[in-house]
């Protein structure tokens, strides 16, 4: 432990709140979507390869682990999109008030959960 009164790095004393949580989540979902991009490329390549390679790819995505990843990527996509728009507003110098930051943050969380559930409800209804 450092001696008392020594300066402390901000992340050691920073209070956990919605602002930093969503900032971290934005980076985590971005990294996850980077992996999802490789999966998208694989899916497209399998489609170009013919019915056999496409069947192998869809079997992989329809497996329990594949579906888990697809659900994760769906949430990551919607959150990164909604929170990304939030960041674009900030870049334009808008939405910095405390109430606006909190409202838009919770909107991004609730919106991404609702959109993820909607997508999978839609897929389930149409494919079952």
């Amino acid at each position: 432990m450092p001696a008392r009164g020594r300066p402390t790095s901000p992340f050691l004393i920073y209070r956990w709140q919605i602002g930093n949580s969503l900032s971290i989540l934005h980076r985590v979902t971005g990294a996850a979507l980077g992996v999802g991009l490789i999966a998208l490329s694989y899916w497209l390549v399998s489609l170009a390869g013919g019915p056999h390679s496409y069947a192998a790819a869809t079997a992989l995505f329809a497996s329990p682990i594949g579906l888990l990843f697809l659900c994760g990527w769906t949430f990551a996509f919607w959150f990164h999109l909604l929170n990304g728009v939030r960041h674009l507003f900030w870049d334009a110098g808008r939405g910095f008030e405390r109430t606006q930051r909190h409202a838009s943050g919770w909107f991004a969380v609730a919106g991404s959960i609702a959109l993820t559930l909607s997508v999978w409800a839609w897929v389930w209804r149409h494919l079952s």
Partner: protein
Amino acid sequence: MSLRSPLGTVLGMGSAKDGTAHWWAQRVSAVALVPLTLWFVFSLLTLPAFDFDTVRTWLSVPISAFLAVLLVAVMTYHSYLGTIVIVEDYLTSTGMKVLTLITLRFLYVLSGGAAIFAILRVALGFPRL
């Protein structure tokens, strides 16, 4: 009068040279991805099924193939820009950092190039295997 410090001159260190280019490219590609990704998601969701013939027929339509190529290209670029920032933030060893950045660049070009080639192969009607 030079604004460079004596130490900076001795070490041969100048500015990073690219200033806000990376930041700006990240934002512009983000704006482009809003309509492109929404088009992609809603196109997939409105397909009657995800079987080979349906998906292949959909991607053979010129406008679908064109937008899919743009989507993959911009998404690969945007993801590359974001990922190198993560590497630059967390990898402190110069050797590891350079090695990872070069590997990532190769991986992104490989992934994006393969996906675009695949879309073109479907859309331009190469003989069915």
